[in-house]
């Protein structure tokens, strides 16, 4: 069975500093991986996806993620955090149904 583990339940950064949200996956074959963002009382929005093409994936709002098979990781990064980035972020693997990680709550301070 496939699964994802988000290593941090909460991450707090200052505005303008880099963001790193960590995700490790477990899969018996080459997975499809996604990052979704959920703002308070909102739906789930796809940030980016990895589907065995380029290992560095660029998404919306300046986010990107790198698929590292040797480390079974798919960490989400952004060079400079913005206040509007404060939200819950989910790392997701397809099974083919979507299996969600526990989520990481990102707080951005002025």
């Amino acid at each position, binding site marked *: 069975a496939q699964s994802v583990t988000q290593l941090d339940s909460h991450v707090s950064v200052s505005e303008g500093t880099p963001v790193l949200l960590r995700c490790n996956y477990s899969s018996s074959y080459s997975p499809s991986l*996604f990052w979704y963002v959920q703002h308070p009382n909102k*739906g*789930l929005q796809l940030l980016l996806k990895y589907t065995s093409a380029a290992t560095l994936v660029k998404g919306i709002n300046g986010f990107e993620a790198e698929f590292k098979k040797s480390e079974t990781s798919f960490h989400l990064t952004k060079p400079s955090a913005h206040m509007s980035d404060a939200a819950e972020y*989910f790392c997701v693997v*397809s099974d*083919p149904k979507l*299996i969600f*990680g526990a989520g990481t709550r990102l707080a951005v301070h002025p």
Partner: protein
Amino acid sequence: AAGVIQSPRHLIKEKRETATLKCYPIPRHDTVYWYQQGPGQDPQFLISFYEKMQSDKGSIPDRFSAQQFSDYHSELNMSSLELGDSALYFCASSLGQGFQGTEAFFGQGTRLTVV
């Protein structure tokens, strides 16, 4: 662009009542997924349909049932509601049975409150 439409957005029901949630996928999407997200929880997969047939089943209680209709919209029927059923219910749609290479698009969710 058209997105996944869920109705109603909010629903308040009493214990032991029934509720029906509706999901209208993106046009031409043939796969629908239902998820339940409790307070502070990650979304949990309930059930999915591909071409009007159930394709996968997750942690869906026996009190719940769902189906996908000929126009590809889906309904989640919930009976004998319990307080613990209070949650945000998401529907997602995709083109094709699998997510391999195809992202799923989520609706805004239906917030069900059981009192």
